[in-house]
């Protein structure tokens, strides 16, 4: 059988993947109009908040397995139903036995004067165009205050534009929330600096401004339409297939059009009188169609239209039916929280709900829609916020927990039991639940707990203990080798997850070189080569530059080393210099030159202290009130080499202007007239968080003691790969303050001693390696040809420096 798929979006991808997974043995040809293979459109906005020029790789779905021919950048122009052939715009003919329309939908562009100047928000190319235009603009308008419109508005704000949202309805997100919720939502959105106009439409767009129907004039360098979508049913229309009055290719519950050889799935399909604009139902349609092609009889019987908006820092969620005989409402206008549940007239069945400002009940309550209430309605309003009103155990087996991927509680429980899953990652991998919008993850955690798995505790199959428990076992029993630990307290021979955890624990407790004896085999490649691996298998070298302060002589040495070894050179985001493109056999030679000039390892490769970033401070800056550079250098030298559950970053600002961005660090200092304010638990990265004030106006000595204890307590008790931000949130700031300032656990003397041991035991790993012939023997590309460089490593030149020529990735 020859299957041809028109369109290559999420629905098409799921179709092909399902066919391949189920052993389809005919041929599949996918014809896509976009210049790239299917990607996760739901996550599109992350492409704008990410760095430019990545080409959207992060969004790409994994390539489907099995033989699939893909033709990209060529639109299907027509269908010849008699000959069973489609023809593309480029003139390519493709015969089919079965044709699947998966053409999605197109943004609706209202026919107002000047609409041609506006952008839409649908593809990576759309976002590239918006990013480009935003670079030359200061203000923007988003037309449409629905889920996507707010998402687009937040993206414009993120691009630095002052942003307005125009919504025709009476309040924001009128399709998802009621008026009360809309009012609370508006408060949040306005607090973020967005200007909201409701109850009015657009009159026209002029150069650099927008005129609303009520006469308001708004300056707008960039205008984005997010006013709904229209199904792309033009192919079907021209081929004489029935389409709905408001668009959409009419299909039956098996996703078949009036022509038995043609299916339609995803956002272009009209099924049961509805077009679905959420990815979950589109995936289900694809699975139904695939099943039919394989001779099955699956049916599409409608889908859940629950939604959760996770942007603007505001949680907005709605699920089930948005009206009912009875309702309970909780409203906290000061805290910006609004929650409402709709209940049947006998007060026994949950019908639906709306949450604004706090969506924790969402993932726990959504699966319970249509079921008998398990607790007082008012208690349910606080589900997930620590009350025990709802837990994973309460979900019936057929409750749909992940609506994006249509996964029930029963399937998740079965997978946990049968496959011995121990964490959310495992559940995601084996059931797909949680892999799209992520809003069901709290429910997954709760189900894991109800199946007796304390999630995230055991790092992998080799141990049943958390990192903190392993730390205590190693400390109390005086264990110094992985072999003994896994032999006496674990099983098997470890893996890439537990070995680095144990390596870090051994380093924290016993010091010594990370490549000493058996410990060498526990290290990730970065620690093993004391450098950072790059995509072509070369490494990068980052010497420590404490506080960002460097002499001209040292700068010259770095320049000479980079020149002599032909390394790509870049200033990092951490106030130091990264030298890229070194082959393993070059590393010791590079270090030798650097060490001789007084440099040491910057531990850019380790889960360890990275940098203590600094502003110029009171020495030079007219506003500075303390010596920020001096303090940063002292801290960096004190904590250098300290191995930890994740990397540790710090910064010191010389005054409240905060030029060193100290509050985005694991620990940050801001100078005051009287000393230092210490902030802890900040993070950039995936989930930015401002650090919390732990203590104020500390003297230098008080400060160092507090940081010593903070770090040692973190190292002992945090989970694997848990940054201080998540750890501080987990244990609570007050508890942390009690332990390290008030010594409530009586462990401070022990923490202090641990840090003294670290400081006293520090030595430079690079120097120790260069001076040890035994360790140096590992630094060759080939054991049997030590003089031969790896021939697969090839460079070309860009902007006068090298860059890797990448190897072709062919998996089979």
């Amino acid at each position, binding site marked *: 059988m020859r299957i041809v798929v028109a369109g290559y979006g999420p629905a098409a991808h799921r179709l092909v993947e399902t066919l391949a997974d189920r052993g389809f043995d005919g041929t599949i040809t996918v014809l896509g109009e976009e210049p790239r293979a299917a990607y996760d459109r739901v996550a599109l906005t992350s492409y704008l908040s990410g760095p430019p020029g990545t080409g959207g790789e992060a969004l790409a779905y994994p390539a489907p*397995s099995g033989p699939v021919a893909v033709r990209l950048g060529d639109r299907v122009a027509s269908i010849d139903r008699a000959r069973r052939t489609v023809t593309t715009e480029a003139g390519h003919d493709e015969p089919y036995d079965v044709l699947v329309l998966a053409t999605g939908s197109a943004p609706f562009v209202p026919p107002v004067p000047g609409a041609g100047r506006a952008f839409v928000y649908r593809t990576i190319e759309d976002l590239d165009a918006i990013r480009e235009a935003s670079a030359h603009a200061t203000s923007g308008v988003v037309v449409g205050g629905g889920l996507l419109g707010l998402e687009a508005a937040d993206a414009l704000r993120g691009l630095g534009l002052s942003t307005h949202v125009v919504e025709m309805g009476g309040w924001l997100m009128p399709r998802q929330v009621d008026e009360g919720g809309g009012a609370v939502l508006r408060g949040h959105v306005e607090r973020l600096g967005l200007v909201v106009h409701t109850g009015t439409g657009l009159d026209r767009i002029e150069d650099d401004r927008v005129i609303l129907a009520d006469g308001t004039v708004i300056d707008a360098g960039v205008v984005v339409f997010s006013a709904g979508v229209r199904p792309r049913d033009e192919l079907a229309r021209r081929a004489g297939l029935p389409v709905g009055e408001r668009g959409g290719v009419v299909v039956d519950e098996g996703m078949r059009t009036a022509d038995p050889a043609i299916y339609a799935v995803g956002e272009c399909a009209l099924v049961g009188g509805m077009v679905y604009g959420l990815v979950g139902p589109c995936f289900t349609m694809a699975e139904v169609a695939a099943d039919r092609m394989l001779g099955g009889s699956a049916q599409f019987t409608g889908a859940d239209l629950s939604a959760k908006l996770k942007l603007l820092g505001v949680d907005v969620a709605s699920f089930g039916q948005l009206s009912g005989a009875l309702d309970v409402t909780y409203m906290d206008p000061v805290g910006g929280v609004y929650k409402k549940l709709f209940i049947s007239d006998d007060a026994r069945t949950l019908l639906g709900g709306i949450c604004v400002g706090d969506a924790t009940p969402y993932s726990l309550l959504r699966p319970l829609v249509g079921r008998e209430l398990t607790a007082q309605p008012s208690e349910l309003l606080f589900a997930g916020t620590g009350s025990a009103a709802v837990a994973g155990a309460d979900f019936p087996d057929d409750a749909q927990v992940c609506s994006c991927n249509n996964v029930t509680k029963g399937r998740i429980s079965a997978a946990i039991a049968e496959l011995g899953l121990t964490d959310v990652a495992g559940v995601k991998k084996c059931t797909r639940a949680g892999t799209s919008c992520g809003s069901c993850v709290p429910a997954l955690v709760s189900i894991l707990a109800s199946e007796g798995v304390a999630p995230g505790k055991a790092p992998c*199959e*080799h141990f049943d203990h958390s990192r903190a428990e392993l730390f205590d076992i190693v400390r109390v029993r005086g264990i110094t080798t992985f*072999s003994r630990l896994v032999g006496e307290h674990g099983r*098997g*021979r*470890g*893996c*890439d997850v*537990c*070995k*680095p955890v144990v390596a870090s624990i051994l380093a924290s407790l016993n010091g010594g070189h990370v490549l000493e004896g*058996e410990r*060498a*085999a*526990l*290290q*990730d*490649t*970065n620690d*093993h*080569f004391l450098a950072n*691996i790059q*995509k*072509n*298998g070369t490494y990068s070298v980052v010497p420590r530059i404490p506080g960002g302060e460097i002499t001209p002589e040292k700068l010259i040495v770095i320049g000479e080393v980079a020149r002599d070894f*032909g390394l790509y050179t870049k200033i990092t985001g951490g106030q130091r210099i990264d030298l890229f493109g070194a082959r393993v056999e070059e590393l010791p030679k590079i270090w030798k030159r650097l060490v001789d000039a007084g440099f040491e390892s910057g531990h850019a490769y380790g889960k360890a202290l990275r940098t203590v970033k600094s502003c110029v401070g009171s020495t030079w800056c007219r506003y500075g009130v303390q010596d920020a550079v001096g303090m940063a250098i002292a801290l960096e030298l004190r904590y250098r080499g300290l191995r930890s559950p994740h990397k540790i970053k710090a910064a010191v600002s010389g005054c409240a202007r905060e030029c060193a961005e100290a509050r985005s660090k694991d620990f940050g200092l801001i100078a005051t007239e009287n000393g230092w304010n210490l902030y802890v638990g900040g993070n950039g990265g995936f989930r930015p968080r401002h650090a919390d004030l732990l203590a104020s106006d500390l003297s230098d000595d008080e400060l160092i003691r507090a940081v010593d204890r903070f770090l040692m307590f973190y190292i002992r008790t945090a989970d694997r790969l848990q940054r201080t931000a998540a750890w501080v949130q987990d244990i609570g700031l007050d508890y942390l303050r009690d332990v390290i300032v008030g010594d409530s656990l009586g462990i401070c003397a022990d923490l202090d001693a641990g840090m003294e041991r670290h400081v006293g035991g520090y030595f430079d790993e690079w120097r120790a390696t260069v001076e040890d012939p035994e360790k140096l*023997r*590992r630094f060759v*590309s*080939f*054991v*049997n*040809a030590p003089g*031969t*460089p*790896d*021939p*697969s*490593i*090839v*460079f*070309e*030149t860009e902007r006068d420096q*090298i860059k890797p*020529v*990448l*190897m*072709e*990735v*062919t*998996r*089979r």
Partner: protein
Amino acid sequence: MTTVQKAQVTPGNAGEKWVPICPYDDLIPERGAAALVRGRQVALFRAFDGRLFAVGNRDPFSGAYVISRGITGTRGDEPVVATPMHKQVFSLVTGVCLDDPATAVPTYPIRVTNGTVEVSVE
């Protein structure tokens, strides 16, 4: 400018199958090493129990020649290595990727003769 280092391809000799690589003691337990065998990159591993394995050094997911630098261990009873690039796990016995069984690295016969590790890539 394009800098290319040419592979040194040793001409094949049909009669000679086993290629000596290095002394067994040069291999660090539970760690890999790369070898260049008749123009092919092979990753050699010495497991904790002394067993030897040889698989292709190319990580099929990234295209980089880095398998020898991965962390070894076990999954269930299977001896495995995780590619250092994005951590997919491969069986050292069959070369099959346990996270994506449609992907595999080649495996090669390996043995020790008089204390010298030998590999055959024919």
